[in-house]
């Protein structure tokens, strides 16, 4: 039977580290990691290198001004920034019972953006259907006290429902609120009206 702490699909991998820390169940972390191709960064770096090399060749052999080389560096940097550094590679939710919830966003450049929400400010986690002009998907949000808008748990990722449900259940348990719907394995849900 598959390890219940790991779920994956074509785009995302969901990992739940509940057992890493002692005592167990003190800190619960859920990670959504995007599938990374090994080929893509190599290709992007190669293209940037080729661009600079071509500009240098033009400058030395054909007498193009130095600005061409500078521009090629600039475009190469833009390529690297947009395709390797800027994309988000991992988003995490770390639940510390009695303390709060930490939301982390890991970028391709190694930068990590963190936001901590204390347990007193956290009202309820909700699974919302997010409707855009072209599509509709599920997203997990937190209702925060004194804030008018919902706080999205995952800023950019739109993982499938089967990955969001365990995180939502863990958040519900941590914020000590009763789940208003019971989710069963077969995808049926029972609710109270």
């Amino acid at each position, binding site marked *: 039977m598959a390890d219940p702490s790991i779920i994956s699909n074509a785009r995302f991998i969901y990992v739940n580290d509940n057992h890493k820390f002692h005592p167990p169940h003190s800190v619960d972390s859920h990670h959504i990691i995007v599938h990374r191709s090994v080929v893509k960064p190599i290709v992007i770096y190669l293209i940037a290198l080729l661009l600079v090399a071509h500009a240098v060749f033009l400058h030395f052999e054909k007498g193009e001004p130095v600005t061409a080389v500078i521009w090629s560096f600039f475009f190469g940097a833009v390529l690297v920034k947009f395709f390797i550094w800027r994309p988000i590679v991992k988003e995490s939710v770390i639940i510390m019972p009695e303390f709060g919830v930490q939301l982390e966003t890991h970028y391709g450049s190694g930068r990590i953006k963190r936001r901590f929400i204390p347990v007193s400010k956290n009202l309820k986690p909700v699974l919302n259907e*997010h*409707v855009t002009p072209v599509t509709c998907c599920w997203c997990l949000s937190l209702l925060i006290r004194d804030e008018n808008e919902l706080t999205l748990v995952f800023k950019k990722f739109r993982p499938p429902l089967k990955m969001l449900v365990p995180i939502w259940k863990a958040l519900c348990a941590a914020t000590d609120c009763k789940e208003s719907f019971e*989710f069963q394995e077969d995808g049926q849900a029972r609710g109270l009206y």
Partner: protein
Amino acid sequence: MEFKEGRHRILMVSDFFYPNFGGVENHIYLLSQCLLKLGHKVVVMTHAYANRSGVRYMTNGLKVYYVPWKPFLMQNTLPTSYGTLPIIRTILIREKISLVHGHQAFSTLCHEALMHARTMGYKVIFTDHSLYGFSDIGSIHMNKVLQFTLADVSQAICVSHTSKENTVLRSGLPPEKVFVIPNAVDTTMFKPAPERLSMDPIVIVVISRLVYRKGADLLVEVIPEVCHLYPNVRFIIGGDGPKRVRLEEMREKHSLQDRVDMLGAVPHAKVRSVLNSGHIFLNSSLTEAFCIAILEAASCGLLTVSTRVGGVPEVLPDDMTVLAKPDPSDMVDAIKKAIRILPRIDPQEMHLRMKEMYSWHDVAKRTEILYDRALRCSNQTLLERLPRYLTCGAWAGKLFCLVMIIDFILWRLLQLWQPDSEVETVPDFKRTELKRG
């Protein structure tokens, strides 16, 4: 899947829905509620209104998608032909819809949804709620669009026989495909006053939008004449619109301020109390496919005086209504006749008769029969469907075929980009009844 055999999953599409109030909006809402009671699943799709955008749930779990497309003209979504294809496809797959039901010929979202649903192989049904003309430029274009949409529809519904004739002539649809299912009225909400009003003064109620189409100009001629002939008659006018100014001027000119009350716009919840303060209901519309207003008035026990236009003669029996030509002198005669027969009218008895005649549950059952019929129609490929569009006209036919072919190609491309299996279906929520202690 938990769904019982014979139960359908219906998507209602229209530009006109709550929070707007009107005939089409009420029809969709009440029909959906009755279908939910019969055990079907109903989802409504409309455009976003101001801040109301996204998914909302209404009574009994009626799910409404307010898709964030801005309305551009008279509540209608901007027609982009193919722009709504991705979101409609997503909603159809995630809700596991079996049937798409579009409402109102004037709704661009409805036409687009029906077109895309046909491309994707779903069965579609269309309901026409209004009568439209043939000769002005707006009608000519709209009729052409209607011809295109209805060329490949499974079944169509009209709210009266007059409306059926109008729709068949405008769209070229074979009459065998069009079914007449009249609107109904919520008789639990529209009840007569517990105590009968005294006959002095006799109160005539008018509730309608004060626009040309609803005959506001006729009222300007009729009211002073009636007030002059009958000193004990008063008028109550509810509603607002561009013609309100003319009615106010008429009031001033004939010094009828104490005999004609202008209430302004009446919220839907207050309509019953306004009707219960009168004896006679006056409807002066110049065109009506059905006219739910006179049903509401009859359910409250009022005698109706109306213009004999469109589908109005089909709505009420002869002893509950007095009909007239849309001409001031004819209408004054009709009001005279109504005042004469008023003592014979019993509001409670009228209400009970209306209860027997009209019910939304009956409308839902008849619509369900239609859904069953539509689902039994055979599935057809694109090539089998294209010849139907060619009959729309020499040039139009070819254009419509091209539009459908492009739609088909776009759909296939969309399937390559995001296969059907990647769209997550929504779990069915079972409602457990709250136990009241």
